[in-house]
């Protein structure tokens, strides 16, 4: 019996490989240069040989066709990376969650201007931390919000809700004070899957003070986790079930999951710790750095309570391509319409966050839309090929980029910590993908 199961599993993997490989177009037929795409192979191979990363899957598509899908290096100790290897995409979950919200928006179940308290009453009467001048009797005071947090604020990270890890990214006293409340209340960033429901976490978070007045800052944080719970409240379904039925199933993202099925465990790529200088080790323990806590081995859990809208999804390059292509097609894929063209236009508009920049992964000149960072001009440090390119990334070194003008999708999936060293590699891949355009 075990042998039969093994053979069937092997057959399924082989079928899946074959079907993916059969879908690959010659780059030249869709206006890309084969020779230039090979530069991406060389770049990845160089990083593997220098032991900066263990392995990666890269995907380049144009005009709805995949021109390049390549696995390189190791998925795990003594196991080669495969094109259908499954990755912790972490924050690349956020665009999926944002899309789920927009599905409800299109169903007339919510307005982006709705205060979150309309659905989650704990968001009523929120307070904001205001630091007091040095020498004051007390370091801070809590002031009432000038207006309530809206769904739009959550989608665009303007809610004033933080990640605990942000104390390491942009340290200051006020952030430390807010995060101390988070710690006190048992809030985590969700990168290590807590053994509680997302609702329990969000209800506590809602009672804690905000870092800034809603709409007055851009702060990357747990806002999208709140959206995940909001989806549960509004839809009446568990968040993962809603995403499955409204996004994964219609888009045939068969290898995307919040918790990995047992029969796919062998496809899950391991996380590696790299010093970026040639020392590369498979991660076996949680990675703790100040307030940042990563638990890559949680991805091997077959079930659990926590469904993070900001971090929980596991997926493949091909599945994420299907998700990205749906956006390039103005909301539909293979005859299935997920969103309207007008909603895609709304999500990818660049003026959602006003004067604020989305500087976390990029630089000035990037704005945040409803789920993505969007390139607003070409006068700044990070250039992904065109104004209007939208993209995001994940903590274990994953990134996608969608260029609506050139109709390209670029996906890079690795599993390497720490995160900060990878910006240069990601930017180079995007640059090489863009420069492979040959028409």
């Amino acid at each position, binding site marked *: 019996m075990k042998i039969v199961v093994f053979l069937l599993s092997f057959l399924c993997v082989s079928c899946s490989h074959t079907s993916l490989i059969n879908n690959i177009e010659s780059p030249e037929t869709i206006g890309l240069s084969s020779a230039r795409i090979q530069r991406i192979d060389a770049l990845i191979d160089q990083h593997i040989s220098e032991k900066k990363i263990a392995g990666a899957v890269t995907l380049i598509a144009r005009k709805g066709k995949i021109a390049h899908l390549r696995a390189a290096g190791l998925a795990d100790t003594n196991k080669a990376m495969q094109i259908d290897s499954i990755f912790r995409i972490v924050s690349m979950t956020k665009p999926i969650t944002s899309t789920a919200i927009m599905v409800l928006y299109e169903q007339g179940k919510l307005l982006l201007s709705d205060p979150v308290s309309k659905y989650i009453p*704990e968001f*009523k*009467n929120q307070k904001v931390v205001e630091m007091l001048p040095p020498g004051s009797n007390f370091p801070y005071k809590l002031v009432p919000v000038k207006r309530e947090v809206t769904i739009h604020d959550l989608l665009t990270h303007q809610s004033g809700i933080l990640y605990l890890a942000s104390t390491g990214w942009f340290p200051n006293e006020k952030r430390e004070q807010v995060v101390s409340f988070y710690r*006190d209340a048992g809030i985590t960033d969700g990168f290590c899957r807590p053994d509680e429901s997302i609702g329990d976490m969000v*209800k506590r978070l809602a*009672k804690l003070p905000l870092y800034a007045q809603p709409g007055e800052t851009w702060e990357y944080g747990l806002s999208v986790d709140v959206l995940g719970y909001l989806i549960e409240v509004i839809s009446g379904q568990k968040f993962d079930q809603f995403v499955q039925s409204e996004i994964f199933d219609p888009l045939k993202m068969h290898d995307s999951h919040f918790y990995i099925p047992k029969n796919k465990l062998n496809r899950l790529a391991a996380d590696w710790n790299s010093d970026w200088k040639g020392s590369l080790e498979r991660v076996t323990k949680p990675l703790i750095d100040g307030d940042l806590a990563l638990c890559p081995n949680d991805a091997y859990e077959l079930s659990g309570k926590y469904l993070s809208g900001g971090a929980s999804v596991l997926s493949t390059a091909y599945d994420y391509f299907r998700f990205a292509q749906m956006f390039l097609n103005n909301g539909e894929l293979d005859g299935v319409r997920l969103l309207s063209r007008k909603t895609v236009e709304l999500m990818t508009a660049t003026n959602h966050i006003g004067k604020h920049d989305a500087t976390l992964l990029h630089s000035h000149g990037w704005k945040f839309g409803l789920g993505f960072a969007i390139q607003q001009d070409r006068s700044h440090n990070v250039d992904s090929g065109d104004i209007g390119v939208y993209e995001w990334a994940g903590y274990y070194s994953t990134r996608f980029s969608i260029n609506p003008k050139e109709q390209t999708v670029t996906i890079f999936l690795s599993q390497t910590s720490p995160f900060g060293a990878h910006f240069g590699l990601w930017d180079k891949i995007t640059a090489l993908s863009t420069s492979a355009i040959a028409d």
Partner: protein
Amino acid sequence: MRNKYHVLVSALLCSFIYSTTSFATGPRVAPSLFVSNENQLYTLDLPPFISTKSEGHGLLFEIINTVLEAKKIAGNINILPSKNMAKYYFSQENALAIIGYNFNLNKEAQKHAIVVPILSIDEYYFFYQSPNEQSIQWNGELSSLKNKVYGTDKGGDVKKYQTVGIDVKYGRLYALLNKMQKNKVDFIKVPQLTMNIILEQNFPNEKHLFTKVQPKAGEINLGVIFNKRHPDGKISAENFKVGLSEIIANGQFKAILQKHLGGDVMVEPYLRYLNVK
């Protein structure tokens, strides 16, 4: 009697000063969320005494609300997820009161505190053991737990543990239970009733592995700390004391305890600090 009252107040204040384990878990919904910020009584989760998941938000919640209503004291109970927020509202925004235990009020805040004790609850040490492990040697003296690891929340009195060679690790109750399973923490101190609920909700298949040991480890004293700096703080405290005595006398207090803890509950142990007129 007056001396006895002072002893009682001192004991309760000590319980606010010296910390035990934090019990904040689960959602924090209360009707009081939807009112303005005036006349708030802030508290933390401690099932089954205060809990949004319990009927009437828990027995302590219900006792306090019963007294507030009976004496027409304007006040809403607001369950917060953060002890520091409760302390902030008490000391910086002159909230009417804070409820519960274990707030570690500083000396300045203590000056403005009027403590009204309500319930006394026994606490026990709990260990986690695999089915084959029987190495618990608690005999009532902390020295018997030398070289073990004690789990508690930050801010508590841990000197007595450290003095006898017990290592201390910090965390919230739920996190500590997980650490016990992973052998990173050997024991914690929790009321039996609280432990029963947490285990039933979160560790239903392993609850038998969390073992309570005798004798009891101590007591926590639950009550209301009224704030003299609130315009109604002093008068509310006086009225509350009267109202509490009245519901004890007329049987409402006992009825609430029986409702939450079962009809055969012995009420007297919970009142051991309340035999003060």
